[in-house]
């Protein structure tokens, strides 16, 4: 029996041992194939494109090379978390929901393959810095590649979401982080 990795996933406690290759399981593979959470996608497997980002303790983190054991004791949030932890007062869920609405309003994608990673990257930014400048948004999203040329729509959507977030939470610094 392999060692269990305990962590919080989208607000729920997980204790699981990776199926398959012991000690080598990667978070992305566990999310997609073991837990059926497939909004997080593989783009390159080399931490270069940003498609597979998830929140780990609030930080936007590539999951394609991250060993499962490395999230022991941490809080992981994926795009599915936006719906799954609704009503639990989690800041990540609330900001992801605002981002989703803003992406719909701006039609901020063409193919959408990499959008999940961008939503996660934008959520991490807004949680850390609720009123980002254009340069700060661009810098935060520079880890995310888009081949369709939807960049300007995505930038508009993130700014729209940040503005909404500030309105929703008058004192963003007091938003609970868990």
């Amino acid at each position, binding site marked *: 029996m392999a060692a269990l990795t305990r962590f919080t996933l989208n607000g729920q406690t997980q204790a699981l041992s*990776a*199926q*398959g*290759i012991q000690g*080598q*399981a*990667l978070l992305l*593979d566990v999310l*997609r*194939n073991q837990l*059926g959470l*497939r*909004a997080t*996608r*593989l*783009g*390159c*497997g*080399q931490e*270069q*494109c940003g*498609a597979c980002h998830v929140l780990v303790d609030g930080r936007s983190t590539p999951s394609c090379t991250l060993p499962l054991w490395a999230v022991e004791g941490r809080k992981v949030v*994926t*795009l*599915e978390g*936006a*719906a799954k932890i609704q009503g639990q007062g989690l800041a990540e869920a609330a900001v992801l929901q605002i981002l*989703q609405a803003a*992406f*719909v*309003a701006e*039609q901020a*994608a*063409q*193919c*959408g*393959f*990499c*959008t*999940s990673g961008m*939503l996660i990257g934008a959520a991490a930014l807004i949680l850390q810095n609720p009123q980002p400048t254009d*340069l700060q*948004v*661009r*810098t935060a*999203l*520079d880890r*995310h*590649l*888009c*081949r*369709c*040329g*939807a*960049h*300007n*729509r*995505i*930038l508009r959507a993130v700014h729209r979401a940040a503005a909404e977030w500030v309105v929703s939470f008058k004192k963003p610094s007091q938003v609970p982080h868990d």
Partner: protein
Amino acid sequence: MTESAVSLGAAQTPCPASLKNHPRLSSWLRFSADGRVGVFTGKVELGQGILHALQRIAAQALALDAQHIDMLPTRTAHSPDEGMTSGSLSVQDSGTAIRHACTQARAWLLQTGAASYADLPGLIDMDQPVDWTLPSTSLDTAQDAGREDLRRIFHGHADFIHDLQPEGLLHGRMLRPRELRAQLDEAVWTQVAEQFAARQVGPVAAWPAALQLVRDGQCVGVIAPSEAWADAAAQVLHRDLKWQVQPHGLSLMDSQGTWEKQIAETQVFHESGAPAEPGVSDLQFSADYFRPYLHHASMGPSCALAHWTPEGLKVWSHSQGVFALRRDLALALGMPPEQVEVTHVRGAGCYGHNGADDVAFDAAWLARQCPGRPLRMLWSRADEMAWSPLSPAMRMRVSAQLHTDHEFTDWQHEVWSQGHSARPGRAATPALLGSWQTAHPFPALEPINVAAAAGAGAERNAVPPYRSAHVKVVAHRLLGVPLRSSAMRALGAHGNVFAAESFMDEIAHGRGLDPLAFRLGLLDDPRSCEVLRVLAAKINWSARRAELLTQEGWGLGLAFARYKSKGAYCAVAAEVEVTDQVRVRRLTVVADIGQVVHADGAVSQLEGGAIQSTSWALKEVVRFDAEKISTQDWEAYPILRFSEVPAVDVHLMPGGENPSLGAGEATQGPTTAAIANAVFHALGVRVRELPLTAEAIQRAMG
């Protein structure tokens, strides 16, 4: 995307080909008892929003809310064969057919007095031909609620082919050399295969018995019970296997390369008017331009599922053409096409003939070893970069003879390039990479250039829009190049428009003329002139040009093209700042795409095309050595990032009743040319070789 989500043919145009080929109402529409309407299309979603546009067309013609309409998956078993989803033709082809079919259904609904569409199949013969002469209601182009497919994706739905998880799924990976002609080192293979079979030493000792290693000629694949095992095994096997390759000695990395030494098939693509003897006052101009090989660089690695059942082979693919893929799969696998069913499932954004079809063969080939179980084949990032067809490098030589500043007596455009199309479904043998590498291989296909009527390939947009007494376009199709090339967004139009519009700028500068006025003086077509005039007004061209001359490193350039010489009209202005590198600060796009169906979709396509073209112009170049393509990841092949993306303003001309024209490929050529012209305006240096890097500028300065 090589597609438009935008346009619609006017009602008085002749019967669209799609409807001529599939005249029955039942080919396009299915009415269910629960009141839902299913719409069949042969076109596929590539990220361009085509299904949304088609659904809107159907909803309006049926006078039904779009939420009652299902766009049915494109599948060889039930969809009309509408060829490839390419060339910015989908709304023109499929949209027009669907609109006629829905207009017909609406007429029958009213005629029969049926309470709802659900009753129609009981009242009329669904196999009757559609009367395409019925007048259809005019299109309401008001803002809509946006794409439902995007809403689903933003909310985390697993709608991509990569996300399918059928029961009993196995996972496949290919082990293939990075070069077309490479051969497996047999001694190494024997050793690796023996170790694999014995499973006693090294990493293989821990591998589960369910892992299978399969070889057929130069095709090697691994079947695994899980994705993790598939990746782990592929990584070890890729490290251990060796391939041998002969150096090719080619140099196609700039305009000075071995172009003229390479075997080529030379054709006069176009000649009009008569060559004149140069007059004493005629001025001669000539320049060579170069565009490198480009990667499709899809964000998602190519992926397919295959399942051999007693009835035949089922394939799920993000191909641009499910019928063409079925035909070539059947050819390659030696079975009748009726026994192959291909279903389209969306992949990452697609901009032409990428690896989608090849990976479908790989999946089918490997799944044959595990009949009864579905198998997903997934390429790695490196596979994607090395195996997907490339957009071929191009050298352009443009020469002209100017009689007066309003009259060319001669314009000659020569282009050297591999063919721009090696798509499935067209040749006598399959166009699938893996089928060229089995123990009984089919021949590797030379890419071709499609006919002028289909928009041509390397020659696309090589015929100038400007008035000239004599025009001659010559194409040299390079043969025997060991790099695989095929269609990517705009095909040859990107290189040709970059060359011709840079050339126009050079002549204007040489004559001391304003580049806009020079173009307008040589254009006869009013819609062409109008997009340029509107562009100039939007950016305050003359004043802004003068203003930027006082700002060090800043420049403003423009360019124009009518895509395929018969498609969308597009003028682009680029404002750049040149520091240690070229930074594009603003792009302004003015396009005339005729009647607009979905303005937001059109703007999205035009802007996306302009940004992709900016990336091509500034950053992208495929590098290769004697043995392999060396740009195999995003570090070696950088594309434009968020911090580098310019502001983009897109203006659509009022289309009136003009037939609609695709928007997805209109901006690529003019954007790159406008950027090059802006760099010249900023620095006074003419860069004729892409990409416009600091090194290229240095070289151009001599």
